[in-house]
Structure formats: C-alpha cells, structure tokens
C-alpha cells in the first residue's frame, strides 16, 4: 500500500509519510495479531464430541483484564500515533510561514485560476498578475497561497506534495508548501463540485527559480499598462 | 395456568405510565431539533455583531404579549392536568380547550406580527438574521399548531371520559413548546 504513494516532492511530506508509515505498522501488527487470535480460537475450540464448553462469564476484574488490558494498549498506541500526527499537523496547517511567492488559488466550476501577488507579496495590489492553466512555482522557495472558491466547494489536491485543502466559497484559507523537485505533477479537485467534477484538472509545474522569475517577469503587468 | 393477560398494554416494568415515558423521549428528540437551530443561531450571532441592529427591529412588545399569552395557556394546561389526575375528564377537556384558544391567540398575534414585519421590508430573505428569525419562530409556530390539534383530539375524548390519561402527555408537550418560546424570546427580541 505505502509503495503506491507517489514520490514526495515537498519539504513537509516526509513527516506526513512517516505518520502514515507509523500507523501502517502499528495497525498492521494489531490486525495480524487479532486475526491470528481469532483463527486460533476458532480452530482450538471447535466443537468436539464429549467436550463441554467452559463457564467464563468474566464477571471479575482479573478475567476482564484479558480484554481491558489490550484495550488500554490500543489506547496507548493511539496516543503515540496522535503525538506524531499532531506534530505533523502543526507543521503543515498551524504554522504557516511567510512565503517567498504568494498566490491566490481559486476553484470554480470546472477549472483552477491562479493569481500571483507579484514582488510585493501582497494580493490585491497593482503588481498582481494572472498565471496560466498550470500552477507554476519555483523549486526550493516557500509558496504561500490563499485558497478560495468562486461558486461551490472544491478541494485542492496535489498528491506529490501531500497537500489537500478544501476551497470554501466565502473564505480565503491560507496554506503553504515548498517543492523540492522540478517537473510536472497532478493537481486535481478532490471535492464533488458538480457534473464535470471528474474532469476538473490542472497541474503543478515546479520550475527552477531562474525560469520561474523569467516567467513571472513575462506575466507581470508592464509599467505602461498600470492604471 | 396463569391468567396473566397475554395482552400487556397495561404492563409497566418501571411503574411509570408508558405514555409518559414516550412523551419525554419525544421531547428529548425535539430538544435536539430546536437545540440545533438555536445553537446555530447563537454561534452565528457571536460572529455577526451587526445582527444586534437587525434584532432591534423585532417587535419586542408584541413578543412580550405573546409570551404572556403562552404562559397563561400553560396555566390552563396545568389545570387540565390536575383535573385529569382527579379523574374529571370533562373539566380537563374544557381546560384543554382554553389552552388551545391560547395557542390560537398566539398564532393570530404571530401572523399579525409577521405581516407587519414583512410590510416594513423584513422578510426571510432580507438578511441572515431575519432568515433565522423566521425559521425558529416558524418552526415553533408549527409546533404550537400541532400541539393545538393534539389537545383538541385529546380533549374530545377526555370530555367523554375516554383516555383521560392522555391529558397529562399533551400538557407536558405544551409546556415544552412554552419553554422553547422562553428561549426564543430573549434570543430574538431582547438580546441586541
């Protein structure tokens, strides 16, 4: 299962993958043990002639411990998992760093639109410019985005970045990522948004910082065009 | 061979009348419905301080009158319940009728109030505050109407001495409808 994960190209993805791996191993072990115990008991205590079942309603705490102790162990492992998860969550969603590049990502039926904040890194100013149909970002720089939706709920999903976030109309939700590898990667909508939800596609294009700067310059409004 | 009836409609394992158990669980589910709506309103109200201005346009005096009307009708419900407990179905029926009249008065005043508000331009789509106002008072009014129907049905039986025990259940329901209003009134009319 874990081998199906696409290659991680983000700086925070390794931590999320580590959480998934931890869960997979702990829960996998529990699953195997539980099934083994089940199979063993079914075989060992199948009906045999002349053998009467035991009387074990387990009303005393000592006998109940056979169930309560494993249950407490389940809780202990769960808390261990939660500890790792909380750390990864804080890094990804709670501590949003200031970005080198700021972009507004807007989902609408049925495409994604990207608007960059330009050099001043503030959206809504004169040096903002529109991106094209792919989300272009420079490798190795922190991208800070504001996720919005124009009509219904969409969800920004980039598996290679381990990043998924719902785009809610009426809200502007901050997020961030930093890509470590150049290339083109999937960017899709992961929330049912209407009839053509299944065709709402874009992509993430990670460029070298130089190529990105050149592209930005080509998209930026020229001085003569500004009002 | 026991003659214990196989038809156990009189049986009560706890000693409580079965109808009373049922009506309280019904009220529990209704508390969840109104509780949900009220909780949404309160949370959104905290996020929208400007609703205070909108709330000033609710007719507090009319609301106050309606509060008195509903509380008075509850008094009649209490009297109906006592009469029923004494076995006096005819008296209980009469008091239930009076309670229903109180409900009718409440609805009439509410209709007048809605009309006035709509004429002043405050409709369910004017703003989210007004949407909640009409939603909650409308849901409540629907429950007042349903309560009236139930009371009239029980009253017609009780006056003839039938199913007098049901007077208690319908009275409990009516008190619940009253209590809901006692929450709605300050939330929608007073808090601003």
């Amino acid at each position: 299962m874990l081998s199906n994960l696409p290659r991680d190209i983000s700086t925070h993805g390794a931590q999320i993958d580590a959480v998934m791996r931890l869960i997979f191993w702990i829960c996998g072990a529990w699953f195997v043990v539980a099934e083994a115990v089940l199979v063993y008991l079914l075989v060992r205590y199948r009906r045999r002639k002349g053998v009467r079942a035991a009387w074990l309603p387990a009303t005393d705490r000592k006998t109940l411990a056979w169930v309560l102790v494993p249950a407490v162990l389940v809780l202990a492992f769960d808390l261990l998992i939660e500890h790792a998860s909380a750390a990864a969550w804080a890094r990804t969603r709670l501590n949003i760093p200031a970005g080198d590049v700021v972009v507004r990502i807007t989902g609408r039926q049925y495409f994604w639109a990207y608007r960059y904040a330009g050099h001043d890194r503030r959206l809504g100013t004169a040096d903002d410019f529109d991106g094209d149909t792919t989300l272009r970002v420079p490798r190795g720089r922190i991208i800070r985005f504001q996720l919005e939706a124009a009509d219904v709920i969409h969800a920004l999903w980039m598996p290679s970045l381990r990043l998924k976030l719902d785009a809610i109309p009426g809200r502007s939700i901050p997020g961030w990522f930093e890509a470590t590898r150049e290339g083109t990667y999937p960017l899709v909508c992961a929330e049912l948004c209407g009839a053509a939800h299944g065709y709402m596609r874009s992509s993430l294009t990670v460029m070298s910082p130089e190529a990105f700067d050149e592209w930005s310059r080509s998209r930026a409004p020229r001085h003569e065009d500004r009002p | 061979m026991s003659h214990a009836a196989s038809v156990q409609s009189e049986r009560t394992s706890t000693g409580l009348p079965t109808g009373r158990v049922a009506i309280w669980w019904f009220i529990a589910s209704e508390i969840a419905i109104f509780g949900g709506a009220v909780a949404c309103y309160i949370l959104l109200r905290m996020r929208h301080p400007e609703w205070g201005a909108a709330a000033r346009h609710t007719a507090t005096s009319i609301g106050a009158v309606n509060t008195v009307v509903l509380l008075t009708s509850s008094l009649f419900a209490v009297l109906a319940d006592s009469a029923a407990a004494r076995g006096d179905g005819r008296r209980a029926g009469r008091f239930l009728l009076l309670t229903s009249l109180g409900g009718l008065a409440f609805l009439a005043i509410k209709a007048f109030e809605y009309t006035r508000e709509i004429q002043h331009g405050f409709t369910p789509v004017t703003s989210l505050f007004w949407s909640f106002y009409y939603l909650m008072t409308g849901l409540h009014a629907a429950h007042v109407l349903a309560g009236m129907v139930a009371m009239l049905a029980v009253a017609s039986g009780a006056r003839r001495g039938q199913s007098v025990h049901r007077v208690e259940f319908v009275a409990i329901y009516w008190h619940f409808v009253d209590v809901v209003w006692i929450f709605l009134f300050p939330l929608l009319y007073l808090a601003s």
Partner: protein
Amino acid sequence: MSHHAPQGFVRKYIFSTDHKVIAKQYLFTGLAMAAIGGFFAYVIRSQLAWPGHAAVGYGVVSANGYNTLVTMHGTIMVFWVAMPVLLGAFGNFLIPLLIGTDDMAFPRLNLMSFWIFFLSSLVLIGSLFVPGGGSAVGWTVYPPLSAQASYSGGMWGVNLWILAVALEFVSFLMGGINFITTVINRRAPGMTMFRLPLFVWEEIVAAIVFLLSVGPLVAGAVMLLLDRLAGTGFYLPSRGGDPVLFQHLFWFFGHPEVYVLLLPALGILAEVITANSRKALFGYKMIVWATIAAGLLSFVVWAHHQFIAGIDPRLATAFSLTTILISVPFAITIFAFVATLFGGSIRFTTAMLFAIAMIAEFLLGGVTGIINGSAAADIYVHDTYFVVAHFHYALFPVVFLAPFAGLYHWWPKMFGRMLDTRLGIAHWLGTLIFFNMTFLPQFNLGMMGHHRRIADPTAFDFLRPGQHLQVLSTIGAIGMLLAQLPFVVNVVWSLVRGRSAESNPWKATTLEWTVSSPPPAENFAEVPQVHRGPYDYSPPGVGDDYIPQNSAPDGDRPGSAARSDPSDLEPVPAE
C-alpha cells in the same frame, strides 16, 4: 387489542399492527432497496473499469449520471437498507420476543412508522424520474452545490431527496420512541435491565443515539430547503451564509449514525456467537458500559470528517483525541466477542460463519479508520479511495454480514422454515472472496492519490497505472452480486418447500426460542417469568449445555449469576 375475530388478508399482512409482520415488511423493503443499491454499485464499477463503455443492463454512463449513481448508492445503502434491516426488521421482530412481551408499546405507531418509511422509499425512487434526474450532489449533500439548482443542474431531484430523507427520519424517530418505551416498560417479570440479551441493549442505545443526534440535521435540512426554494442564504456566502455550517449539522448526525448502524450489528453478533459457542458472553456488563460510553462519545467526534474542510485547524487536535478515545469501547466489545470463543464448543452454522466473517472484515475497517482519524495522515487519504475502502470494510460487515448472520440464525423463528446449509456456505464463501477482491485494491488506489466521485480515472495520467486494479475491483463487485444468488434461491426454496423448524433449533437460551417457530400472534400464551440472565450456556455440572431464561431458578447453579434479589420477581397472580 387482542384480535379474536379472524382478520382479512389486508389487516393481517398489509396494515398489520403485529410487530412480526411489520418487521418482515421492513426486511423485504430493505432487501429490495439493497438490490437497487447493489445494481447502482455494479454500474458504477462497470464505468470505472471500462470508462465510456455501456454498462450491461444500463447503458452508457454520463458524467452527471455517474454522480447520481454514486449519490443514490450511498443514500440507499445507509438510509434505505441499513436502517430498515438493522433497526426496522431485527429490532421490531426481536425486541418484544426477547423481553417477553406481546408487541411493541405502541402497535399503531409502529404501523404508521413502516408506512411512512415505505412512502419515503417511493419518494426516493420517484426522485430518479423527475426532470433533471435524481440528486447528483452526493449523499453528503454539501451546499452550495446542493443549495442552488444552477450549480448542480437538477431541481426536483434534490428536493425530493431531501423530502425522502426527512420522511425516513420521521419514521425512525417514531420507531425509536416505540423501541425505547417498550424496553423500559414492557419487560416481562424478572427481566431486569442486566438480564436483557445484549441485542436489546444495543438496539436501545442505537435508538437513543439516533433520537438525540438527528435533530440538528432536521433543522439543517429545513434550512437547506429554504435556501433552495425560498431564497434564504443560510449556506450561501453570496447571501451572507456559511457552507461549513451545514457540514457541522450533517456530521453531528452523520457520525453517530454509523454507530446507530454498528450497535445493532454487534447485538446480532452477541446472540449468534454465544449460541454457537455454547458460552456465556464474556464480560456482559463491561460490554454494556462500553456501549453506553461509545454512544456518549459518538456525539463529540464529528469534525474528524472535516479536518481539511475549512474548520479552524486548532479544532483538529481536539477531535483527533476524541476520535482516538472512541476506539477504546469498540475495541473492548470486539475483544470481548473474541474472548467469548475461548473455551467454547464452536458450531460452524451458517449464521456463525457470517458472524465470524463480520468480525474478521470489520477489524480491517477498524484499523484503517486510524489513518483517517489522524489529522495529518487524513490530509493525504481524505476524499480518496482509501476512505472508500475503509468505510466499505466497516459498513459492509455491519449492513450485510451481520444481518446475514441474523437472518440465518432467526429465519427459522421468523418463517418456521429452515434454510439450506450448503447454499448458505456457498453464499458465505462467494460473498467473502468477492468482497475482498472488490475493496482491497481500493486501498492501493487511494494511496496512489485516486480522488473520489470521478467517473473516468483514465482522464488522469497519474491514475492510469491503477486501471488494472479498477478492473479487478469491478470483477469482484460483479462476483459479489452473483454470490447473492444462492441466498435468493435458499430463501425462496425455504419458504416454498423448506423443512419445518422446531421452536429451538439452535438450543439457545433467550425467550424467543421458548415459543413456536413462527411464534403465535400474541407471542407468549402466558407472560414469561424470567429467572436468570441471557447466556446460561454450559453452566458447570451435568445436564443440558444451556438453560432458557425462563427456567426455574436453581439455588446451586452459578449459572443464575445475573439473578438479583428474588423480590424483583413479580408474584404470579393467583388463579
């Protein structure tokens, strides 16, 4: 209330107030809806494996049609199969029998509950045929997509869907009050709460959870309808509203709802496992307390469905913690069921095979829930096929494997006929093999990043490598559906020519087995007197390896463990 005069066909079979008839009405309606929901699943899988090709028996699936199929499949399975079968059918049939009474506390309310439910099914099916087609906005019906027809394309489809769900809620609210009141007040003399078979506890806690959780969604649904029809803006930002509000209202009910389904399934398992291992339930009281704790906790976990849905990220930690806590009472229950097998004398009846299968499969559903409950990991798996696989591994055992166990166990009691064992084993084997074939590959698809509710995976380059898994999953789904044929044949054959059933073919202890199969209209000729707990199997010493609950108390036998103070028994009235 006793009907001594002979009843016409209509009063006896159609508008009957007899809980046993009503139970069967719920059962057959639920099974019919399952066939429809299963057919939709087949079409969905056909489209996913061979996108663009006509599904045999349906035709080409359009993009909107796919969304409708997905919406309807989920809606039908949760509200029109799981609820009527687990609560309507098993609850109705068994509760009065298990507590030793002749019917529900309110038989006419029961009748009304079923017919409102039936009406809701007609409204739901009808919604597929209106202009614009059926609802295509997901069973989760999130606004703004669902709040404005212009976004989703359909108008009446969604309106009728909301109406159908509302009617279904009314039906089960009424039913729930009936169940709770009946168990509180109609228990036979000596049937204390801690002598109730676990199945009854599970049904009651489920009914209470449903009763208390559905209210906010009722309010929320009214608000959604007002947005759609009256121009309000509860959920529309353009009119000052908030889409996330609906999500909270939906999941505040939606999460407890899965336990409303799980609890009765566990109840069925308790009865089947104890009878077929000839052993008392391990830690009965512990399980009861765990069930109540789970019921309470179920009200504070809901936002784990919304970790990345725009809620304040700080809430995620709180809901992650509660989600972790709720795994404990269910671990206790499942472990206790497994511990019941220890030292047992296990008979592999078809019912027992299905009960074991339920546990074995549900374990995978349970452990894969952990990754969803971890907010950081959920970033990856949310809205992917990993979640789809997870909830099918949780829900299929609950909605199908446990009820099949229940049907094979109680069919003799319900219909007075035995079911054939070989057909039962074929049904079991086929279902298990093909169920795993269908859903195991979907974990892999989810890990690839495969997002949900898309009609054509091949439209995405990164998903194409998984297409062989799609085909494998679809073959599994077709196999699952075909594997139900032995069950259909078995059922029909049993009703037409099956062997007559004795009153207690499984030699079980609970009260339903003390009367004939099927029971007489009034269930018990005399009010049963209960003297012991529900699971006196293989008590120490010689004699039968089971003692029915209404057997006279025996001072020496530790088997009467749950017998409390004898003064709780009511004196049998003198002749």
